[in-house]
């Protein structure tokens, strides 16, 4: 294989070599169970404590407000179900473009007697805080709005929504899996009570994530067992994962600002290059309020999976906005909620850049896309979608 270009960092990232080095001892000589009182256990506990402090520092939180989980999905489930069952009944507000971990948890809560309002988004995929305000009810017990959507990268006005929640004493959950370690924020300044974040999106290992829970937030555990994580999440800690996660966020704290500027420039270079060469292409997502490395482009009248296959054959990894699985294809629910017309939505391709991405990579992708789309359009009947 000649050149390989990975532009799917919103799906996952390679583990940073410094993170791997930090983790390795915890598979071997520091293998102990952090709950054990002997020296072996204390060594493992020290690794976990250091990681927790690093995560807390990044969030502007106290270490005991950080709970480690197995993934963003578990964090989201813990947040929504933890709020719900601590109150027994009530109403949630979330958006139509949340990750499935929030959407399906919310839908399940509906089957358990809770009410949920799913607010819409504008053409850029942005939630309107006024719509959240209008959705408030006397029995609203939680608001869950993501920080940035993984498909389109649009950054939500969480500070304004956080103010609404705080004024009314309603717990505010933010799924920040796509922004943690990429954007600077402070949980106090934004008024966040619960925040989901994950490791493998920021060059840490898979299988480890976390939930920030503001002190005093009324929650119940969804996983019962031992006394781990201050009885909020039972189960022996994933020590190597936690240690790696701590290192990953420490590195992000160091590199994030420079990376933000660099990726924003590369992201715009990609979009400018493609739109100069390919007719009938659109940018899905907010033009400016967007994750630095995310560019979701829609090619009218071309089926996205065929573009992904064409790019894969050139060694380029991107992801399709629509997927044909088990004989059914659905345009992305995010693009549908934004009102993107079907013949554009079906041709959506997400490019997500990361620390390994270079200007040469972007130029190679730009050059590769044009003939692929041109050839596909020659085969595809106009207006078939």
């Amino acid at each position, binding site marked *: 294989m000649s050149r390989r270009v990975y532009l799917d960092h919103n799906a996952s990232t390679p583990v940073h070599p410094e993170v791997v080095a930090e983790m390795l001892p915890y598979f071997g000589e520091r293998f102990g169970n952090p709950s054990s009182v002997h020296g072996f256990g204390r060594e493992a506990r020290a690794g976990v404590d250091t990681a927790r402090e690093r995560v807390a520092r990044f969030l502007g939180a106290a270490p005991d407000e950080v709970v480690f989980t197995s993934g963003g999905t578990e964090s989201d489930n813990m947040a929504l179900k933890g709020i719900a069952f601590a109150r027994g009944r009530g109403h949630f507000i979330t958006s139509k473009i949340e990750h499935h971990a929030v959407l399906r948890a919310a839908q399940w809560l509906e089957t358990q007697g809770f009410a949920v309002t799913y607010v819409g988004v504008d053409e850029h995929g942005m939630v309107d805080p006024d719509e959240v305000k209008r959705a408030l009810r006397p029995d609203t017990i939680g608001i869950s709005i993501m920080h940035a959507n993984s498909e389109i990268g649009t950054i939500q006005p969480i500070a304004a929504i956080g103010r609404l929640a705080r004024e009314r004493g309603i717990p505010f959950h933010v799924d920040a899996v796509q922004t943690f370690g990429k954007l600077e924020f402070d949980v106090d300044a934004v008024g966040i009570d619960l925040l989901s974040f994950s490791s493998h999106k920021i060059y840490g290992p898979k299988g480890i994530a976390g939930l920030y829970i503001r002190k005093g937030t009324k929650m119940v555990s969804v996983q019962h067992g031992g006394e781990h994580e201050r009885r909020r999440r039972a189960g022996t800690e994933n020590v190597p994962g936690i240690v790696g996660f701590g290192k990953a966020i420490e590195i992000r704290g160091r590199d994030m600002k420079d990376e933000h500027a660099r990726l924003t420039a590369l992201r715009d270079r990609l979009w400018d290059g493609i739109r100069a060469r390919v007719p009938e292409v659109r940018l899905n997502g907010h033009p400016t309020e967007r994750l630095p490395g995310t560019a979701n482009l829609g090619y009218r*009248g071309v*089926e996205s*999976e*065929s573009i992904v*296959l*064409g790019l894969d*054959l050139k060694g380029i990894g991107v992801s399709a906005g629509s997927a*044909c*699985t*088990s*004989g*059914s*294809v659905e345009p992305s629910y995010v693009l549908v909620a934004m009102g993107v017309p079907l013949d554009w939505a*079906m041709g959506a391709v997400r490019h997500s850049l990361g620390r390994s991405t270079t200007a040469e990579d972007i130029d190679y992708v730009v050059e590769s896309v044009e003939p692929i789309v041109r*050839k*596909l359009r*020659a*085969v*595809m*009947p106009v207006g*078939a*979608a």
Partner: protein
Amino acid sequence: MRYSATLLDHFLNPRNAGLMRDPDGTGVDEYESCGDLARFFLRVRDGRVAEVRFQTYGCGPTIAAASAASERVAGRTVEELLSLKPQEVEDAVDGLPEDRKHAADVVAGALRAAALDALGRYQGEVG
């Protein structure tokens, strides 16, 4: 790679793609739950397929299957084409993954529809 070299070759270099002026038969088939679509155009001489053109909308395997099938059916009688099986289309691309079998269904369906259309026009002319 989950696709055969033959399939990838047809995907990258589709044969006989495009429209046809004044075809003797056209046929369309769509895989409803997926939105994949194939449209074939046939030129018929002496009851045999003299020229094939196609357009598809769909994932890579559908494009490849249409291209490979367009080569495979050239020269056949229109009557033979009426009984074209999806398996033969699949064989023409050296197999399809389970979740992409519909590519062969939609291509075979569109070719059979085109054959039926051509036959109807022919019978209309002589009858």
